[in-house]
């Protein structure tokens, strides 16, 4: 016989799972099951149609040995190293300046934040237009400063830089808001005490603001890295992954393999590799910086 309290507990549990059911059904069907299926597909040779042939780890061997994959991996690292530190520094500067008592504050904040509301497709088109080799504003400015104009998006050396600039432009405002929220958590007394000691603004920034923002730095770092791993739309709109695959990142490569070349098993294999990278980088960042910051 089940005792009364435990029967009540059971009823309670069932009720709770009733509330969780809609979320869990979607989560399991459309996220967790696909993740598991991803591994399965990566062990077969399959092009989406026709028979699957079990090849176990051959897809991984083949892809890891490919020159093209090394290029994509390098692109991904360059992209992340280009976007993450730049966005962090610029959004921190903007937030610190906006955290002072200053006129026009909400105008500044809304302006810097505004690209967050537009799509990365729109961002991409705006910057394709900015980097246009004949009429683009960027080249006009370069010429006015005495430099020679560049064919930004058609050059294997500058296309990635152009994509990075567009991404940073679109994202600074978002992380500025997170930094502003972080700045609110620093008690005013610390600054007052430092002022009594005659500290300069720069010293206050260096010795109070910067270290006390550590949880925010970690959060921004983790979020920015996750975002950068999944960026697709601006690359699709600005360069289509080119020229000569110079802007193809891992996320973009999955699309190329699966839906341009119709090699589903190769796309799934790269997706597993990307998943591995995302988890590894997350784990590393938390290990190094501590995970006290997250939620």
């Amino acid at each position, binding site marked *: 016989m089940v005792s009364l309290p435990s029967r009540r507990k059971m009823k309670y*549990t069932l009720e*709770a*799972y009733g*509330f969780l059911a809609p*979320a*869990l059904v*979607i*989560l399991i069907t459309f*996220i*967790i*099951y*696909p*993740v598991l*299926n*991803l591994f399965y*597909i990566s062990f077969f040779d399959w092009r989406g149609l026709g028979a699957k042939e079990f090849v176990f780890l051959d897809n991984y061997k083949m892809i890891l040995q490919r020159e093209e994959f090394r290029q994509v991996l390098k692109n991904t690292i360059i992209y992340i190293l280009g976007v993450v530190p730049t966005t962090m520094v610029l959004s921190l*500067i903007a937030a610190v*300046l906006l955290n*002072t008592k200053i006129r*026009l504050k909400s105008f*500044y904040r809304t*302006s*810097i934040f*505004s*690209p967050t*509301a537009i*799509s*990365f*497709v*729109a961002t991409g*088109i*705006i910057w*394709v*237009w*900015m980097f246009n080799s004949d*009429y683009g504003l960027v080249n*006009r400015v370069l010429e006015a400063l005495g430099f020679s104009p560049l064919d930004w998006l058609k050059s294997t050396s500058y296309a990635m830089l152009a994509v990075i600039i567009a991404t940073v*432009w679109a994202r600074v405002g978002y992380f500025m*808001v997170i930094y502003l*929220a*972080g700045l609110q958590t620093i008690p005013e007394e610390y600054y007052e005490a430092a002022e009594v000691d005659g500290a300069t603004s720069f010293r206050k920034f260096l010795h109070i603001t910067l270290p006390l923002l550590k949880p925010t730095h970690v*959060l*921004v770092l983790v*979020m920015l890295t*996750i975002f950068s*791993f*999944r960026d697709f*739309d601006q690359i699709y*709109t600005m360069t289509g992954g080119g020229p000569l695959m110079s802007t193809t990142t891992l*996320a973009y490569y999955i*699309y190329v393999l699966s839906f341009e070349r119709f090699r*589903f098993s190769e*796309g*799934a294999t790269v*997706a597993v590799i*990307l998943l591995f990278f*995302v*988890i590894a980088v997350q784990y590393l960042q938390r290990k190094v910086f501590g995970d006290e*910051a997250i*939620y």
Partner: protein
Amino acid sequence: MDGTRTRTKISIKSLLTHAVLWVFVGIILVPILWTFFTSLKTPVEIAHGTFLPEVWRWENYRIAWEQAEFPRKFLNSFIVAITVTLGQIVTSAMAGYALARMEFRGRDLIFNVAIASMLISEQIIIVPLYVMLAKFGWIDSYKGLAIPWFFNGFGVFLFRQFFLTIPKDIEEAAIVDGASRFRILWQIMLPLATPAVLTLFMFTFIAEWNSLFKWLILVKSPEMRNVQLGLTIFQEQFIAQYHLLTAATILVSLPSVILFLLGQRYYIKGIATTGVKG
């Protein structure tokens, strides 16, 4: 003497602050303004390279709207964005309530899995998801574009955090009166959680309005395209017609920008909550 010196120092400092902020604002706004002015020019003016149009040609917008065949695409974007948004609010509110207010085995595990699911990007699962939706016959349908997106880890987290801040005695009175948990959630808790509802609404609607990737993969027929996919196709077709391309870009951006301006407070708060220890 001393007082004057401090005042001068302060005003130099604030002058510098303003100067740096204007650099930020300039770098952000100039590309947007330039795109906007381009959308009002003639092709000849574009070739000439003046910053401002001489005559503001608003009809570029009408032409772009027609050429890009936008009406159906706006409708598709709207239908999917609103369905996904409502779907996420329902699943997140229910799950968030259970996680905040009920005690049961597996609670922490479910919460952690929900949070961890935010690491899974669309590109990672797109191959198996595509295969599955093809089997369901959901390719090229609103169902396929909406239902798989009904779960959002951030939404669950947001509602859980919000419900935790609501005092328990508010529900206890209702429990004594014999109200069911379900009624308590919809009639008492959810109205109190209006800020969370609005935050998730803004976030999801704007994200869905701006989404490209899933439409690129899951849509085959031209009638099922959304505004963003339509814009990329317009970009290919009208590659040299910058006045029309920029007008189309601005048209597509308007709904999310207007929603953002209306609910900026919630949008910013939603971002800020993710960043603050809960």
